[in-house]
């Protein structure tokens, strides 16, 4: 990868935790990429919805459009005036040691414009007997012009399990 793609910070959990925050994000990049691979201690065979917020704010200025498939069901949904962006993690009744794969892209995160993001979630259960899996492509918006200086991922009532990983990258356009 070109040197315009720089690892800012990372964390791989050694203890279960309810939320992970990247704080004091430098404003020296053009875009941000957040890649996470997670499993949540909820006994569910499939995806569990987690929450992303920025700048510690849970005000109702987030919205998102989702195109998702769960099992054999495909649907599109829309959430507006929400207090967070929804993202999926692997539940704890799926095959042991399987984790979700999620990538968030935040263009122009330090600009004085409303903040958009794109997001792809994949949750899979590697079982011969049960192929429950999920994939979602999401477009998100925070209707707030403040630069993004922190990003928080919250499990919405549960814990990210040991081995869940979180990597934040900065992208420069030069």
């Amino acid at each position, binding site marked *: 990868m070109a040197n315009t793609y720089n690892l800012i910070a990372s964390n791989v959990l050694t*203890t279960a*935790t309810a939320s992970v925050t990247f704080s004091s994000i430098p404003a020296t990049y053009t875009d941000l990429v957040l890649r996470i691979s997670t499993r949540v201690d909820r006994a569910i065979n499939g995806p569990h919805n987690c929450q992303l917020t920025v700048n510690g704010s849970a005000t109702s200025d987030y919205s998102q459009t989702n195109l998702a498939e769960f099992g054999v069901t495909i649907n599109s949904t829309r959430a507006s005036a929400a207090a967070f962006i929804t993202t999926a993690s692997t539940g704890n009744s799926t095959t042991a040691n399987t984790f979700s794969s999620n990538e968030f892209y935040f263009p122009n995160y330090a600009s004085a414009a409303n903040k958009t993001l794109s997001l792809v979630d994949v949750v899979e259960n590697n079982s011969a007997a049960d192929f429950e899996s999920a994939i979602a492509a999401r477009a998100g918006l925070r209707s707030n012009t403040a630069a993004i200086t922190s990003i928080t991922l919250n499990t919405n009532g*549960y814990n990210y399990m040991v081995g869940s990983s979180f990597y934040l990258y900065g992208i420069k356009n030069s």
Partner: protein
Amino acid sequence: MTIPTAIEVNCTTGEVIERPLTADEIAANEAAAVQAEANRVVAEAEAVTKAEAKASAESKLAALGLTAEEIAALSK
């Protein structure tokens, strides 16, 4: 009982701080877990209702003489 924690990674200093959740945060998490389970129950019930309606509709279409391929084509 283990107290849930939150982790903060400071991107400028590299410092990682792990702290126990506050009582308010724990209460909010417990409420969120209850709501998530309630949402799952509702979603599963809706899926069952939808599947039953689909099966019923397909049965009626078959009774009208449509082939399985024709019925499948309608749902594309």
